[in-house]
C-alpha cells in the first residue's frame, strides 16, 4: 500500500470555525490531490498540487485553500466551515503518468 496518512480521520466542528486537514505521504510522489466524496456526486476534485508550492484549483474549490511547503505534506484548509462542507475528504497521490493512490479518508461534520 502507498504510504499516505490523513489526519484527523474524524472531526466535528461548528459553522464558522477554521479547519485544516493534513495529508502526509512517504512515497515522494510529485502530484497530490484533495477530493471530496458526497452521495450522488462521486469524487470531486477540490485542489491539487504538481510540486512544492505549485497548486491549482479543481472543480469545487470555493471555500477551500491548500498549501504544500514540503513534498510530503499537503494541507487543506476551510477558512470558515459551512454545513455544505460536511463530507468525506480523500487525499491522493500520483506520479505524473500513473494512477492515483488514496488515503483512508477524513470524515468532517460541520454543525
Amino acid at each position, binding site marked *: 500500500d502507498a504510504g*499516505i496518512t490523513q489526519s484527523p480521520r474524524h472531526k466535528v466542528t461548528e459553522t464558522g470555525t477554521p479547519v485544516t486537514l493534513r495529508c502526509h505521504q512517504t512515497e515522494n510522489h510529485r*502530484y497530490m*490531490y484533495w*477530493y471530496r466524496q458526497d452521495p*450522488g*456526486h*462521486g*469524487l*470531486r*476534485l477540490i485542489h*491539487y498540487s*504538481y510540486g512544492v508550492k505549485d497548486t491549482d484549483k*479543481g*472543480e469545487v474549490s470555493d471555500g477551500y485553500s491548500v498549501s504544500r511547503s514540503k513534498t510530503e505534506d499537503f494541507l487543506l484548509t476551510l477558512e470558515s466551515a459551512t454545513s455544505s462542507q460536511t463530507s468525506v475528504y*480523500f487525499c491522493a497521490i*500520483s506520479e*505524473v*503518468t500513473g*494512477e*492515483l*493512490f*488514496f*488515503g*483512508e*479518508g477524513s470524515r468532517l461534520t460541520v454543525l
Partner: protein
Amino acid sequence: DQQVKQNSPSLSVQEGRISILNCDYTNSMFDYFLWYKKYPAEGPTFLISISSIKDKNEDGRFTVFLNKSAKHLSLHIVPSQPGDSAVYFCAASARSWGKFQFGAGTQVVVTP
C-alpha cells in the same frame, strides 16, 4: 459540468455471473481511464487502467473495454464474488493534465 457519467447507481448480480459496469465521458481530450473499487470507511483502491491507444485491458477477473468513438468504457468482472460487493468508480484524464475526473459510482451487490 459532469464529464464522466456512471448512469447506473446500483447493480445486483449473482455470485459466479458476470458484472458489467458502464461509464460514459464527454471530453474528447480524455486519453487515460481508471477503475476504482471502494469499500465503506476505506479509501478507493485502484483496479485497472486503460490508455486510449488500446481498446481492451485484462487483469485476472477484471477486463476494461474502451470504445473511443462512443466515448464509452465498461468494466467486466468474471466471475463475480461476494468480496466484489463495493462501490466502483470510473475516472478519466488527459495525461498531460495530471488530474482525474470521477463518475458518481455504481454500487455492486453480489448475492449468493
